[in-house]
Structures are given as structure tokens and as C-alpha cells.
């Protein structure tokens, strides 16, 4: 964001602008297509050129997400919780920057931007706490009628594609990413098309939070161009369509059926209220249940 204008007097300093890039495998590439698109603020003023990701970027992101699955899903739940909490710590340190970006992107007042940024930080904390508790809430030991010890445990699904909310550029984005990685999945997310800048700044937080590269990959660009490639990608295990544009959602869900991706369907006419209690739905949407039998006897 450009806080100082273009006319530079002798005593004023020209600000150094940030290049908004993609986040793939822990690195910050531009789109391989070399394309970008104009991002304006809510009033239509120029904010930045964001990378316009391509099909190839989607595939690269999926490769990176797949490569990160082993390490991230194999980390202890305690360790994942620590990393997610670290994200909250890093986000808190950039609180002012996010408030400004959210206000500019969403056209909301500073106080609204402030409360939604605070809620986004607290949401990381909420999900940090879930990583080592979800198995204790949705797992079970099963009293089967026979001499067997039988228990069921949640396990991450794998690579999950997410279409981020279009309106809530930070709180909504955090609310869809954090539950999915808390349980050990890795993510490829398409940021809000018109409001991608908080997502790009979030990647700078993620890159400095001990989160292994590839666990979260963020693409900016056109949902209509990118989402079909994710929905039909055979190495993607689940897709969050809860915030997919209504006109595309059915086609995407149909494409996802090809390899039976786990689909989180849209269930609101508009975006959910991100300030509401998130519940467990986003945690459990991308979990498998594994049941183990073992005989009991001398």
C-alpha cells in the first residue's frame, strides 16, 4: 500500500513498495505466466499489481503441498499446535499492517478492520489448541462384542484445496486455512480475487512462523480460471467449496467427484458470519477415520 503519494518533494521520502507474489513451497515466486492484475481498494483506487496465477502455478502448488504432507502430518499434534500458535504471535506483531490492509481492501472503518484482525489472530489461537484435542473429541474406543481392542482415530485427508471467501479478506481466510492445517493436512488456497493483499501479507507471516514450506500455498488470480484445475486435480484429496462462487460451485463439485474428493459444500447463500463460534465442522471436514482392531488374549 502506498501511504506516500507520487509527488516527492526534496524533504519527503519515496516509499519502497512491496511486490505481491505467490506463495508456493515456502518460496515467493511470481506467476510462471508472467501475468499480473490490478488490485484496487474498495473505492477503486489502485493498490497494487497482484500475480495472476496460471494452471501451471496450480500444479506447482499441488506438488509442493503433496511434498509437505509427510512431514506435516507426521509432526506431533503438540508440535503443530506450537507452530499455529507461533503464527498467531507473528500476526499480532503485524497487527497494524493487517488492520490497514483489511481496511483498504474491504472498505471498512478502522475499528471494524481492527476487530476482524483481532478475531483473525484469536482464531489461530483457537485452532492451535485444537490440534492435540480433536482426536480426544472425535476419536473413540469401541466396545465391540468380542475379545478385541478396537479404537478409531482421526487422520488428515492429505492435500486440501480451498477457495477463500471473497469478502472477508483476512478473518475469513484464516478461518478456512487454520482448521485444515491444524489436523495435519496441507493446503492450496485461492485468495479472494478482488481483495488478495491481506492473503499475500499473511504468507509473509506463515513464512516466518516455523511452518514448513508447502504446508500452505497461496495463489492469487481468477477463481474461475484456477478453481477448475484444483477441483479436477487427481492429487488433491479434498476441496473446500463453502465459499465458491455460486455459479461455479456445482461444476466444481462435479469435477471433484472424479477422484471422490472430500467436499465441504456451500451451505450459506452468502458468506458465513466469521465472527460466530466456528464449531468443529471445518476441522472434521478433512479428516479420515481409521479404526484399528487388535485381539485380546493370553
Amino acid at each position, binding site marked *: 500500500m502506498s501511504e506516500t503519494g507520487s509527488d516527492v518533494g526534496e524533504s519527503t521520502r519515496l516509499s519502497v513498495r512491496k511486490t505481491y507474489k505467490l506463495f508456493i513451497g515456502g518460496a515467493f515466486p511470481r506467476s510462471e505466466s508472467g501475468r499480473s492484475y490490478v488490485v484496487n481498494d474498495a473505492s477503486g483506487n489502485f493498490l497494487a499489481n497482484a500475480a495472476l496465477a496460471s494452471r501451471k502455478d496450480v500444479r506447482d502448488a499441488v506438488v509442493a503441498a503433496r511434498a509437505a504432507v509427510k512431514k506435516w502430518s507426521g509432526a506431533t*499434534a*503438540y508440535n503443530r*499446535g*506450537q507452530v499455529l*500458535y507461533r503464527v498467531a504471535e507473528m500476526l499480532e506483531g503485524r497487527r497494524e499492517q493487517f488492520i490497514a490492509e483489511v481496511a483498504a481492501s474491504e472498505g471498512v472503518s478502522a475499528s471494524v478492520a481492527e476487530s476482524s484482525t483481532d478475531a483473525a489472530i*484469536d482464531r489461530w*489461537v*483457537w485452532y*492451535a*489448541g*485444537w490440534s*492435540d*484435542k480433536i482426536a*480426544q*473429541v472425535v476419536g473413540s474406543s469401541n466396545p465391540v462384542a468380542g475379545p478385541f*481392542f478396537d479404537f478409531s482415530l482421526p487422520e488428515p485427508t492429505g492435500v486440501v484445496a480451498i477457495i477463500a471467501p471473497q469478502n472477508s479478506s483476512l478473518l475469513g481466510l484464516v478461518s478456512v486455512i487454520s482448521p485444515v492445517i491444524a489436523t495435519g493436512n496441507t493446503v492450496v488456497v485461492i485468495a479472494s480475487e478482488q481483495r488478495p493483499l491481506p492473503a499475500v501479507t499473511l504468507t509473509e507471516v506463515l513464512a516466518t512462523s516455523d511452518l514448513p514450506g508447502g504446508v500452505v500455498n497461496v495463489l492469487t488470480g481468477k477463481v474461475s480460471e484456477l478453481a477448475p484445475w484444483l477441483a479436477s486435480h487427481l492429487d488433491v484429496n479434498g476441496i473446500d467449496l463453502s465459499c465458491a462462487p455460486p455459479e461455479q460451485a456445482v461444476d466444481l463439485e462435479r469435477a471433484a467427484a472424479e477422484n471422490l474428493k472430500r467436499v465441504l459444500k456451500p451451505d450459506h447463500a452468502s458468506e458465513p458470519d466469521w465472527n460466530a463460534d466456528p464449531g*468443529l465442522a471445518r476441522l472434521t471436514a478433512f479428516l479420515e477415520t481409521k479404526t484399528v482392531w*487388535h*485381539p*485380546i*488374549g*493370553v
Partner: protein
Amino acid sequence: MTSKLFDYAPAPESRAIVDIRASYGLFIGGEFVDPIDGEPFKTINPASEEVLAEVSDAGQADVDRAVAAARTAFTQTWSRMPGRERAKYLFRIARIIQERARELAILESLDNGKPIKESRDVDLPLVAAHFFYYAGWADKLKYSGYGETPIGVAAQVIPWNFPLLMLSWKIAPALACGNTVVLKPAETTPLTALAFAEICQQAELPPGVVNIVTGAGNTGRMLVEHHYVDKIAFTGSTEVGKAIARSVAGTKKRLTLELGGKAANIVFDDAPIDQAIEGIVSGIFFNQGHVCCAGSRLLVQESVADDVLERLRRRMSTLRLGDPLDKNTDIGAINSAAQLQKIRELSQIGEDEGAQRWSAECALPDRGYWFPPTVFTGVTQAHRIAREEIFGPVLSVLTFRTPDEAIEKANNTPYGLSAGVWTDKGSRILSMANRLRAGVVWANTFNKFDPTSPFGGYKESGFGREGGRHGLEGYLR
């Protein structure tokens, strides 16, 4: 086995990082205050008998003040605060403990006598993890299955064997659920609890949410019998636990007790013997055997008994006893003169009753309280060393022939805290686990702890669980 290939050069951890004050007041209402009554007492380093600090002995008026401070904090602040905000205080505490882990580990080893290897690698990581785990529960209580309403003021009395770890087991779940606490650390190990009081200040925890009163058994009695206490959590001896249970009779006070143990560590003939030896050693010699869940009765299948014992003695003769701050030390100091006396007495009784005593050759330092790792063979179930909790580095060995006999002997105790099973056969592990009357069963491992894992006893080892989702039950209604 006495010839040594290598001698270890001393590798002492520096204590320069630890700043111990000459004297400490009580931590009440968010600040250190002088006691109203009572003479100060000294806490010493059991490895050298050096005085570390003077500590206050809280009397009735002090206990009254502490409970009142906790009550005020409960009604005015803590129980009304959203869980999300309580969580963030607990996360702060967890982080500060991680940041100050080295200092706290050294302080713990100084005051308790446990090897720095254990305070550094076991106690402190678990302490931080415990706060981290329960921090996450503070805003998720509706998913606990135990309600969401805190009980009130918790009186918590903890032992000297894992001073800061027991503090974390008590305070973290209590605070997560919205209760406030008055905690009394053990008379011989108050220093890390007092350091924790400073951590509460650094975290800007609201005053009165945590209060620390130091003192001896009498202070503990005044605390748990206090009229305005709603919940009691006690870890310590079965004898005191029973006295507390009597004292709450007819009151509405909620009670959880984590008491003594006499765990059987059962080794079958198909067990991976080398791993079992390590498990037997850590089961009884970890923390000088000052562990309520210690594997103090080794039940070994007759067919492998000679082999197991020979390997055990060989392994025991490699244990290094000495300066707790030396990073190579396996066995530290016995925590107090009184405890050393008790271990000596029971060991003498073991000999007098006819069991065979064997200790690894090891030189004991001149000053401080020390007891060599010791094993008794030829022990029967009638022997006192097979029945009573010694709470020291003393192992009693019994043999068995069949799984039924192992179960019979393992369960032949008023205690029921923990047990160990060593066998390659999974179905046997699970069958033994089903039949053992113990709250924790370790299979092909021993003395493992984790904040997510409920811990607590059957029978006279107490009731209630600490750790895991189940650990919330004692602090919610």
C-alpha cells in the same frame, strides 16, 4: 564389571543463571507479602545441605488471606472472563516457562536433588506442554463433555518429587476451567513454585487467580480444611489423602487425590529383554525412585529371571550417582534427611525379613543425602518391601510362572496407580491391561507422561484423573 573403560569428566551445569533471593514471602493477590504469623524456615540443597533460601511458613491468617484473594479473583475476574482470554493468559505462561526453562530446570535440581538431565529433558518440557495443552481447552470446554462451569476456589497441595510438574498438573486445568487457586508447594521444594509466582506476574495474570502459600503439613491442612474452598486437589501420601477425605465428609467440597503406588512391572519370557532392562531401570531409578507410579515391584517370569537379573545388575553398575547439576548424572540426591531415613529403615527391614540385598558399587558423596540403586531378590508378597511404598531407588524382585499368577501378584496391593507389561505379544498386553487394577498401564515402556494422557489411580492410589480431556472433570460442574 568394576573395571571402567572410561571415566566421565565432570560436566556441571552452571547455576549462575539462577537468581535465588535470600528470603521469600507468600504470593497472595498478585504480590509477594510478608506472612502475618509463623517463623520462616530454610530450604536446602539436598545434594550439599547448603541453605538456598528462607521461606515463609503460612499460618491461619495467611491462608485466610490467600483464600479470600482467590475468592475475589474468582467472582470478580476469572470466572467471568471469556475462555478465549483465559486461554491467552495460559499460553503466555506456557511461553514464559519455555523461555525460562533452563533457569527453572537448574532451580528444580538445586532444591529437589534430581539430575539436571531429568529436570531439563523431562520435567520442564512437560511443564510447558501441560500449560500449552490446557490453555487450548479454556475456550473449548463445551466440547469436554464435563460441563462448562467452574467450581470456584481450588486448594491444591503438591509433593516434592516433581515440584513444578505437579504445580502445572494442578494449576493449568484449574485455571483453564475458570477456577482460581491457592497452591501449597512441598515444604522441602518451594523454590520453583515461588519462581512460578514471578512468571504469573510477568504474564500479567490478574491478581489472586494464583496464590502460593508455603509451609509444612499444617499449612496444607489449614488450606484444605478452609471453609471457603470449593475444590481440593492433593498429590501425596495415601495416609494424608485419607485424612483429607475424612475432613471433607459432610461438606460440598469436590476432591481429587493422587496418592501412593506400588506398581508391578511384569516381564514375560518373550519380552525384548534389553529394552525391558532399560524400562526396569527407568521405572525404579528415574528421579531416585521418588515417583508415585515407580515400577517398584519387578515381576519376572521364572524362566528368564536369572538372565534378567544378571543384565539388570550389569546395567545398574553403569548408573552414575552424584552431583545433580552434572549433566552425566543418572541418580541424584534423596530429597531430604527424613526421606533417606525412611528408605534406610525399609531396606533394613527387607534384609531382616530375609530378602537378599544388592547395590551397585558406587561411592556416595560425603555431604548431602544419598542412597545407592538397590535391588532385593528373594522377595515374597508378605515382605514389607513388597507391600509398602519405599519412594526411593529400591527395587523388589518377585517371580511368576503364568499370566494368571502375574495378575494375582500384581493386583495384590491396596494401591493401583500404574503397572508395566513387557512382552512381544500384543494380545497378551491387552489382556493383561484389562485385568490389571491400575490407572495407567505401560506396555513395553514405563514412566511415560504427556499432557494429553490421563493419569491417576485405582483403589487407594486415589481418584480423579490429571491430564487429557479427563483432567478437566475435576474442575468443572
